[in-house]
């Protein structure tokens, strides 16, 4: 790579879906690449089933830990509605990766609001420029890899296929972040995420 890598990645979902661990993994990847990196997390009340976002910024130098509107290269959304909520962060030419999972928020289950229909096709149709939307059932792939909890790593595997980062770096990061008994599942989850994008790109 002649140009130093610069990536803004937003990990969005519902509290408890594993965005914090995914952020830690990406931070470790940046560290291994010798880049500056900042990972901003949300703890506390929002974790109780609320909308959550973890920002990851890696570049030669990073000042603010926050991704501003139209600044994200990637949005990894662990749930469909959250993809819609945070879509304004994506920059033209960026990629949105959406886990095919719908978790109706409290406002929907109490009948105050309706869960929007066909979010993925809306995001696909309304994307400007060269922006791309990829959607797949990451939770199913994680289940097949051994645990639905590895959904976050499936999402990272999918994203990795769209970057120039050597997959070995991700593998090292998985070994550094997870205890030994969880590594095999996460390596497998990462690979299936990577494969699903390869499959999608071929079509």
């Amino acid at each position, binding site marked *: 790579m002649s140009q130093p890598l610069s990536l803004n990645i937003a990990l969005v979902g519902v509290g408890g879906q594993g965005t914090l661990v995914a952020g830690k993994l990406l*931070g470790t990847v940046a560290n291994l690449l010798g880049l500056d990196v900042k990972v901003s997390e949300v703890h506390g009340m929002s974790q109780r*089933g609320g909308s959550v976002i973890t920002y990851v910024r890696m570049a030669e130098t990073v000042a603010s830990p*926050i991704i501003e509107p139209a600044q994200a290269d990637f949005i990894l959304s662990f749930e469909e509605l959250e993809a819609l909520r945070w879509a304004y962060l994506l920059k033209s030419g960026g990629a949105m990766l959406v886990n095919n999972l719908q978790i109706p928020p409290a406002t929907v289950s109490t009948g105050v609001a309706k869960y929007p229909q066909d979010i993925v096709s809306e995001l696909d149709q309304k994307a400007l420029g060269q922006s791309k939307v990829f959607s797949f059932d990451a939770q199913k792939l994680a289940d097949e890899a051994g645990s639905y909890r590895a959904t976050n790593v499936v999402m990272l595997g999918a994203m990795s296929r769209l970057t120039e980062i050597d997959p070995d770096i991700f593998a090292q990061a998985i070994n*550094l972040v997870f205890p030994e008994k969880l590594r095999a599942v996460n390596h497998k989850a990462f690979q299936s995420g990577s494969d699903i994008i390869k499959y999608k790109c071929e079509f």
Partner: protein
Amino acid sequence: MDKPANAAGLDRQLLLGNEAIARGAFEAGVKVISSYPGTPSTEITVNAAKYPRIYTEWATNEKVGLEVAYGASLGGGRAMSCMKHVGLNVAADPLFTASYTGVNGGLVVVVADDPGMHSSQNEQDSRHYARAAKLMMFEPADSQECLDMTRQAFALSEQYDTPVMLRLTTRISHSRTQVTVGEPQEQPRRPYVKDMMKYVMMPGMAIKRHVVVEGRQSQISNDLETGLVPGAFTISRKSAKLGILTSGMAYQYVREALPDASVFKLGLVYPLPIEQIRAFADSVERFVVVEELDPFIETEIKAAGIACEGKSLFTLQGEYSIALLNKVFNPDTTLDPAYDASALTPAPGRPPVMCAGCPHKGLFMALNRLKLTVAGDIGCYTLGALSPTNAMDACLCMGASVGMAHGLDQVTDHEMARKSVAVIGDSTFLHTGVSSLINSVYNGSTSTVIILDNSITGMTGHQQNAASGLDIHNQPAPELDLEQLCRAIGVRSIYEVDPADIKACVKVIKQSVEEPNVTVIIAKRPCALIPPGIGKKEEVVKLDRDKCTRCQACIKIMCPALLAGPDGYPQIDPNICNACHLCTRVCNFGALKGGNEA
């Protein structure tokens, strides 16, 4: 553990601001840390507990935490107490007078503000405490500074014989940035020497100590101007057109949005190097203070006669951002977004909800049925104010529910006591609710207090407390008996109920509110998220479609594990269900069954 897990096997580690402060305390040779949990400060003490060399504990409240740390300092060891902004209100009493006595071992008070109120009931700016208590206050701008300034704060605490404050904001506490750790230093305990004139704050001594305090503050101000306080400020000179005075997270936004501006970055936000700032202001054409929340720095320098712009350009509310700075300084900035946000379907809100299996939910459903006025408190259960339970009328601060219920009782000549209850968690009750309960009993209240005893401090991420039977290291500790405590206070009517049993809750609450004395109901069930959990995974709920009428009564309890399927039947996510079986209790058709009954 001498070094935290090195994420990359490199010199640079990726640490949360809070982790970096724990590391800085370790390197500074800290002996004692006593804190009460509070977002966003909690992980400092959680991480400090991983260093065997540091004695750490969860105190019953922030005032106790600071007093324990003060005692440790008195005994000659370096000590620290960490809290969130509202916790500092509780600890303010010892703080102000500790400023008068000064320290023996270095004493650092860490306070984490929450601009934007990610997890707080107000947006107060703790910098005012530094001025009010006449204490030095550092404000780091990333995790490396968190570590470095913590070490610095301990050194200056001993050098100037004063407690030193370290102020964080949520983004500093909860951002991971790269840190190069240092070597831990040996910090032998200073000898304890009895010194009544310094440590016994009666008027005669305090009058003399106030003179010392003012002398100390003048000394610090002089040393600041002559550059004798390392880490106090840095100046980066670029264009003379625009000069910015800033600190903390706002500094990072400035760095990115205004790369050409000259920047005066404060490490120490109180007291300020006024003459240095005056010279900087004079050297630039336009001089602007960029600070989140209150115009603290702006007011200080304006009082010193330095002209500046500040809050006239910005807001007093919420977090700052690069977008906000661009709006003010670079209005021609254009964005190239992937979406025209106004063309997208608006996303319905997703407020936080009680977890699957949350023991509080059943009790709040009972309160909802009884249509009582509920004086609430601070914790996960504050979510009981929202749908579907809508069962909370007021929530003010830690421990306030008990006093509020007594006030409602007295102002209505006991009429309201028959229609109201206080609800308070076990940790919050022990924090400051217990002193209010003593007050209620002593003063003839007829109010009802429901202690939601889930045996843990839940909202901040499961910290142990005196009623948990476990210490900060999850080792067995004396377990406070809430019933015995209430009995000793003089509460005559004490009931225990399972909060998941809605009918039993309704019955006991109805009975309690009628009693002509203080009544305590202990609603006891452990948090669903701590081992061993509320139910066994093999008992997760299953649906009998033949019996289900699709009435969706179960959906209305808003359990995260229970969703309405497209065909109208409930769908149960076995990964999320914690087998509390609350849904089986609201189903009138017997369509939902726990695994073993199914």
